[in-house]
């Protein structure tokens, strides 16, 4: 049999029960890995600017109360408390420009 050329950059790659030798793509390596959602972390669903903050750490807040205004695409988005709880920490200040999925407020 002809001598095969050595293939570089191979890794183990499992599909079902088979483990293949193959290369990965940049896109695959950079994929966003799934995490269980944590509803106590209030994240920005769109990149934008913090215009106003209505609560402070330690506040007891009822579900539905406005926590802050996140301006994005020229719209003032009201971010509301998802459930009754306490503000554990606030990670933004007025005027902050934040990316998507930035943890703005943590509640407990």
């Amino acid at each position: 049999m002809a001598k095969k050329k050595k293939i570089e950059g191979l890794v183990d790659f499992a599909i079902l029960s088979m483990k293949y030798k193959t290369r990965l793509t940049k896109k695959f390596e950079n994929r966003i890995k799934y995490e269980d959602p944590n509803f106590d972390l209030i994240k920005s669903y769109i990149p934008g600017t913090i215009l106003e903050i209505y609560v402070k750490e330690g506040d007891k807040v009822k579900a539905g109360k406005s926590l802050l205004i996140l301006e994005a695409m020229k719209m003032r988005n009201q971010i509301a408390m998802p459930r009754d709880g306490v503000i554990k920490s606030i990670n933004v200040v007025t005027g902050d420009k934040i990316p998507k999925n930035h943890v703005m407020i943590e509640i407990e």
Partner: protein
Amino acid sequence: MSLKKHILDLRKRKEQVQKGGGDKAIEKQVARGKQTARARILALVDKDSFTEFDLFVEHEARDFGMDKKQLHGDGVIIGTGTIYGAPICIFAQDFTVEGGSLGLMHARKITKIMDHALKMRVPLIGINDSGGARIQEGVNALAGYGEIFYRNTMASGVIPQISVILGPCAGGAVYSPALTDFVFVVDKISKMFITGPSVIESVLGEKISMEDLGGARVHAETTGNAHFFSDSEAECFDQIKKLITFIPWNNSKKAKTFPPKQPKFKGNIEDLIPSDPKQPYDVRDVIKGIVDDSDFFEIQELWAANIVIGFGRLNGETVGFVANQPLVLAGVLDCDSSDKAARFIRYCDAFNIPIVTLEDMPGYLPGADQEHAGVIRHGAKVLYAYSEATVPKVTVILRKAYGGGYIAMNSRHLGADFMFAWPMAEIAVMGPEGAANIIFRKDIEEAEDADAMRAIKVQEYKDKFANPYVAAAKGYIDSVIEPNETRALLLHAIEVSINKDDHRPAKKHGIPPF
């Protein structure tokens, strides 16, 4: 004026207008590493074949001081020509004239040559190099884009449409290339995006360079918007010319045939492939071992490389190849590779190009990101495209065809005309290890030496199912073949399929999952 004077006057006028935006603007264009629009056309078409239309068109804008501006040809050059003797229509935006911006007359020229291409049933090539809509012309510019998109859609599947991005192509302008069949980009020169870096930064606060946002490499590797990537305009034009040799002029013709040639590859084709289905190899080597002159013209080489698509010739006739690539992500189907294969299959079907599928298929890519990105919807495109296609469809199963992947890759059940399998092909619901673990779970659990028992049961399953003969016994595979017979049998399959006449139920159009 004497006749002679008229002729001299015409020459003078032509010379003036052909300079486009003038010497200074041309100097700037060249300094950016770009050729002028006219030089590009002349570099692309056969010598002395370019015939220009509408050289003397002038814009009609009257506002914002535009009435005092003369824009030669209104920033775009259109005409007809030939490439290796094949007639084509072409337009090239001229960045030296008002940044190649698109106004009403500019758009009229483009739609005129598009109409001409469609009427004449010849390929259309568009060279895009434009700053975008000419803002001074307001909604007229937008109307122009819309009329171009409409014609792109009308011409789709009737004549080949090729877009060449040789400069910025931003905002609405990107949608014309996106509607065409093949998009060519050149490193450092091509830029495509809907909203540019400055808008993204001001609205979203995200900083990104133009190159990282929508440079040639991004579209060739990440987005899949581009089909061909090159390092220079000259290389890009060579790619376009080569593509033109592989495709027909329109959907009622076949691609030109060339004198048949043997592959350059000499040797045993099975030696290219490790017999262990878990070991990788480059499936392009197999294609090159089969096609005429070992000349395989790959499309979207850098994007979704886990599937390989492209053109080659068998006995001089153009054939479209679709092949799983074990070298990358084990050759799985995922969202991107499904998208890539499905569109190519539909292209081949529209333009009477037989499809050869080389299958070495481990299944679909598992992962929450894939499921959430819609691998169901994207994967369905492959099923749709293969089922819908009425051109000759031939499949060769090289080493494995597991699960849903077996069905998707042009199986008999989706209407394959010829199903060949190499003798080592494993055709099964899943790999032997997985299958044995499920079927013989109890035996394995209860055994004293579970691993030894598992090995026995895996072998048992392999002997029984992981071969092509179970499928062949049902007629799902027409023929189990020796690898070295592959080329001869493919040649035969294409030859005897020449009169294939397969019809679909009459309908306005189907609803493919895109």
